[in-house]
């Protein structure tokens, strides 16, 4: 639980961190990007300014020289002096040629190009046009001629061979001006050459980031400055596109070629880069700084990574600390859980650790301890009670047996008196009940009774036992039913502090005459089948046990031969179904009326039992039920 809880805490903390860091990263990245663009543009501006400054110096010198050339157009040999002087006096110049159209100076023939060139500390001057060097077919000569205006050539490598001295190849560029004759026609080209080593160095040195590099491309996209020497002059920004076009690089090339300035994000050799570019309007070239994204965002990424590590470590520490803390906090609970489990398995005497904490867990521990104590006490009590109950239940079973033995249960009851058809049934609602019935024959007199003690269970059963015994003893003495009732009443009401009572119907049937003497002591009036069932007429005597000395009145019915008498306790007519609806007198009478006239006593009792059982259904028996049916043939 501690791990899960800690996990959730860390999860939510991580989510909050992530959202905050994400927002910070986006904002910071934008700021870094903005700063990088500004920085790169500043550097590019400075670079272009520096380069242009030197190129403009060349243009200025050329403009000055042009005027002097025009002053001496009639003196071709002076061109040597002019070209030599200009190279000597301008240290940044590598060479200068003043070249003319074929046969412009007729005396000089097809070729006339006054050329001075600096080699080391010396300046060499010569006429360089010849059959093997027809200068007027070359770019530097043709460009100003065709364009009709001054222009810069594309840079080129120059491998000089001068007076048998061989020089290393150099990157050169020439500023060329067309020379116009007096008649307005093109007469030749003034060309000034400068080495671009300084340019290459200047541009290569532009390195705003550790792994960034600068490139310079010519008008045709040719790499004039590039960190990879294999590409210099040999390859252009479009070369790769000839076989595998890359729209990003093509777009960059086109922008640079169109003298646009800007920034593009391009993937070079599997590295995401920012390319900042700016044109050099003087020459038509374009300079660019390629900065790997990892460099531009290097600081940002380092900071981000550090923060991520710190956050991760923090979250880990948070997880561990919270785990430990929660585990410690929950430890008593865990112990409690183990002990509760132990207690659940019946080890009620498990010793709980003492908890002195005042928080909820302390309260819970103490409550649990108290609960355990209560539980132990309760279990003890329960055990004792259960034992007692079991004993009582055992005793009750015995009592039930005794009680059932107290009422006659042998049927037919009088094998010697075939004329007597009698059947009785008793079912206590609990182990023992308060209903009773009895019968016996003495001197051809059939004494019988049915009764119902107030209340149920053991007290009622004891009361019933007394009533039962008194009935038998007093009846056996030949007393009339009302006398039996009177004496039982007097006897039972004497020490009746519980104020219990019993309703009884006591009858005495003369087997010879068929005359019935009876006394109904507050009991349900029996039903007579004549042959239709009807309630027997009964005087309103009080139940037995209530009023000592009460004078019970008896009644007599003559000629009861062939008349079925059905006696019952209120367990029959007051039996309730699930909805607490009583069986009732009406249902009882209907059930009795439906019986066949030839039904014997046992049949009557059993069918009535079945009828009431059908009414009660699955509801619990609410009262003791006793029925007795009698007929004298």
């Amino acid at each position, binding site marked *: 639980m501690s791990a899960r809880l800690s996990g959730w805490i860390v999860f939510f903390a991580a989510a909050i961190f992530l959202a905050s860091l994400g927002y910070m990263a986006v904002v910071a990245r934008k700021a870094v990007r903005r700063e990088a663009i500004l920085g790169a543009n500043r550097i590019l501006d400075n670079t272009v300014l520096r380069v242009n400054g030197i190129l403009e110096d060349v243009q200025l010198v050329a403009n000055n020289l042009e005027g002097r050339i025009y002053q001496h157009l009639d003196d071709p040999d002076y061109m040597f002096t002019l070209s030599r002087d200009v190279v000597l006096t301008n240290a940044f110049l590598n*060479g200068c*040629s003043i070249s003319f159209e074929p046969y412009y100076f007729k005396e000089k023939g097809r070729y006339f*190009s006054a*050329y001075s*060139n600096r080699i080391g500390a010396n300046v060499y001057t010569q006429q*360089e046009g010849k*059959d*093997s*060097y*027809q*200068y007027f*077919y*070359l*770019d530097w000569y*043709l*460009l100003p001629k*065709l*364009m009709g205006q001054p*222009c810069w*050539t*594309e840079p*080129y*490598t*120059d*491998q*000089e*061979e001068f007076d048998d001295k061989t020089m290393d*190849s150099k990157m*050169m560029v020439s500023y060329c001006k067309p020379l116009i004759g007096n008649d307005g026609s093109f007469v030749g080209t003034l*060309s000034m*050459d400068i080495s671009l080593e300084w340019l290459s160095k200047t541009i290569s040195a532009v390195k705003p980031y550790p792994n960034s590099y600068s490139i310079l491309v010519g*008008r*045709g*996209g*040719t790499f004039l400055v590039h960190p990879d020497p294999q*590409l210099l*002059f*040999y*390859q*252009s*920004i*479009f*070369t*790769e596109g*000839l*076989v595998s076009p890359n729209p990003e690089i*093509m777009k960059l*090339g*086109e922008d640079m*070629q169109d003298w646009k300035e800007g920034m593009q994000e391009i993937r070079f050799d599997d590295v995401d880069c920012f390319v900042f570019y700016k044109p050099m309007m003087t020459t038509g070239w374009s300079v660019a700084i390629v900065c790997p994204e990892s460099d531009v965002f290097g600081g940002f990424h380092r900071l981000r990574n550090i923060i991520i590590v710190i956050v991760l470590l923090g979250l880990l520490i948070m997880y561990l600390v919270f785990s430990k803390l929660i585990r410690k906090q929950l430890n008593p609970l865990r112990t409690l859980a183990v002990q509760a489990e132990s207690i659940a398995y019946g080890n009620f005497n498990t010793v709980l650790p003492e908890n002195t904490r005042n928080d909820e867990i302390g309260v819970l521990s103490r409550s649990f301890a108290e609960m355990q104590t209560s539980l132990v006490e309760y279990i003890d009590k329960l055990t004792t009670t259960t034992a007692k109950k079991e004993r009582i239940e055992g005793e009750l079973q015995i009592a039930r047996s005794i009680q059932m033995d107290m009422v006659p249960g042998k049927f037919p009851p009088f094998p010697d008196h075939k004329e007597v058809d009698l059947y009785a049934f008793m079912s206590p609602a609990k182990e023992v009940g308060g209903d009773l019935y009895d019968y016996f024959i003495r001197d051809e007199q059939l004494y019988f009774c049915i009764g119902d003690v107030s209340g149920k269970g053991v007290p009622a059963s004891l009361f019933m036992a007394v009533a039962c015994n008194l009935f038998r003893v007093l009846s056996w003495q030949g007393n009339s039913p009302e006398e039996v009732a009177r004496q039982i009443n007097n006897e039972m009401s004497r020490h009746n502090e519980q104020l219990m009572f019993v309703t009884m119907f006591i009858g005495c049937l003369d087997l010879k005459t068929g005359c019935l003497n009876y006394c109904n002591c507050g009991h349900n009036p029996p039903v007579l089948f004549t042959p239709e069932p009807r309630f027997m007429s009964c005087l309103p005597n009080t139940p037995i046990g209530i009023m000592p000395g009460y004078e019970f009145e008896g009644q007599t019915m003559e000629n009861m031969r062939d008349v079925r008498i059905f006696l019952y306790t209120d367990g029959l007519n007051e039996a309730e179904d699930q909805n607490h609806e009583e069986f009732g007198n009406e249902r009882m009478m209907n059930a009795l009326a439906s019986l066949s006239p030839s039904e014997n006593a046992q049949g009557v009792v059993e069918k009535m039992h079945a009828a009431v059982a059908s009414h009660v259904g699955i509801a619990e028996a609410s009262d003791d039920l006793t029925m007795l049916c009698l007929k004298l043939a």
Partner: protein
Amino acid sequence: MKRFVLILLALFPALLLPARPREVSDTLVFTPQWTAQAQFAGYYVAKDMGFYEEEGVNVQIIHPNVTQSAESRLRSHLSHATTLQLAQAVEIAANGVPLVNLLQTSMNSGMVVISRRGKNPMEQRGAKVGIWAGGFTQLLESVVKEANLRFEWIQAATMVNLYIAGALDAIVAMTYNEYYQVKQAGFNLPENCIYRLADHGYNIQEDGLYVTREYYEKHKELADKFARASRRGWDYAEAHPDQALDIVMRYVDRNHIATNRILQSLMLKEILNLQYDPDSGEKEYRIRPDMLQLTNDIMLKAGLIPRPVTLEELCR
């Protein structure tokens, strides 16, 4: 001011140097008509793969330089074999230097005119059109003359920079060389800006391998072996273009040529395409009589040759 482009210029002036007969006994010196590039891949392959050696020919490949063009080396016997366009060979033979065609590699014309102004160059009447200062354009000049286009031909050592700068309205180019150089400079070159001679009834073969008749008569066996091994070299180059390209790049590097592998690979592909006969679709390695006839007709009409050159004159 001897710039790197200078070497190209020196290739063109034909027959400028006086003939200086000089025999080179057992070695065959071969000079292609241009600096080292994939246009001559078959010969480089034959040399480096030992095909010449297997034939028993000791071939030396010497490229033209500042002072010695291929033609001048041939005429001065410094070189025994060279490559020439068919029109060039016809011009030389008709003007008195009998030549023998050992191997006709090209079966098509790769010559085109590319407009700088975004339209059909043949509709640019009076346009300034760049051509190579040294030649190769006899046929084109004749075609233009016939169409009365009045082009102002601007001879230049190289034309690509002039084209890029917009100094010219159009340039003459080879589909395997300048065409790709211009594309490499960022020009898209839509088809309507390109006039292909081959598509307009002037599909005339170009590169072939030549020796002088004089040399051939004396070293017939050697020349035949050289031709056989060269053809094998071309076939091998076609079958193994990557290997051939590796070999070409070795020659390129050795001669400090300002090019790159991609351009050379495109050149090799195009050169090999041009070697297939337009009718049969096969590599035939022969001069087609109809193309020779057309060359003679055009050049006679333009007054470039005094007489037609027959196939028999050029054949071994």
